């Protein structure tokens, strides 16, 4: 991974990304927002774990309903 890619990934904070990932379940994010999230996830394992947790919870609620 290049330094530029790393820098881009850290332009947005984990807190902002957590909001965007949650919001993405309700609405389509803008191209810029999606790009920022993608860049960030590429360099941040913690937010990747969080993203997985969100998907897990969605699946859990789906099973709960069935």
């Amino acid at each position, binding site marked *: 991974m290049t330094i530029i890619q790393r820098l881009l990934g850290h332009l947005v904070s984990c*807190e902002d990304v957590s*909001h965007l990932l949650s919001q993405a379940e*309700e609405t389509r994010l803008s191209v810029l927002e999606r790009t920022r999230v993608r860049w960030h996830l590429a360099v941040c394992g913690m937010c990747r774990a969080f993203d997985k947790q969100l998907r897990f919870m969605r699946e859990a609620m789906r099973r709960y309903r069935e």
Partner: protein
Amino acid sequence: MNPEVLKELETQRGYLLRVARLQLRDAALAEDVVQDTLAAALTAQASFSGKSSVKTWLTGILKHKIVDAIRKRQREPVAASALDDEADLEDFEGLFRDNGAWQAPPADWGDPEEALNRRQFFDILETCLDKLPPKTTRVFVMREVMELESDEICKELAITANNLWVILYRARMSLRECLELNWFAGRPRG
């Protein structure tokens, strides 16, 4: 009267009651709403196409009954104050450092199937949902269990899309913290 439908209604009663309680936070009202739902289902059973499951069909009816009950309650001035925002953003300040980095990194929850195959997990999930502030649970259950569209929820509860996102965000952050503490902590990861 189709005896199979009747039996199925009885089977689903517990589930409907749990969903109604989570949303209304009022055991007596939840009981009424479920009673109404089952009565409506009996009257309308001819309209049950059999294309969806009985559970889905009943959940659809329950959805309308709950929305009606919430609307009715919102018109009552005393109850209206109970709908005020109780979830404070401050509760969440501890989640991130000043620079926006995670205070406590989210853990790897391992193989989801392992948890999702256990009845116990869903008990914990329910307890966690129950611990959320009432309005937060209501919105979250409307979205994730009843599968109402975002704009539908906004309309019913008279909140903005932005409000909705914030409430759902809080719900998800609290739920993940609760699950992490009460289910995933100390579990070996596969």
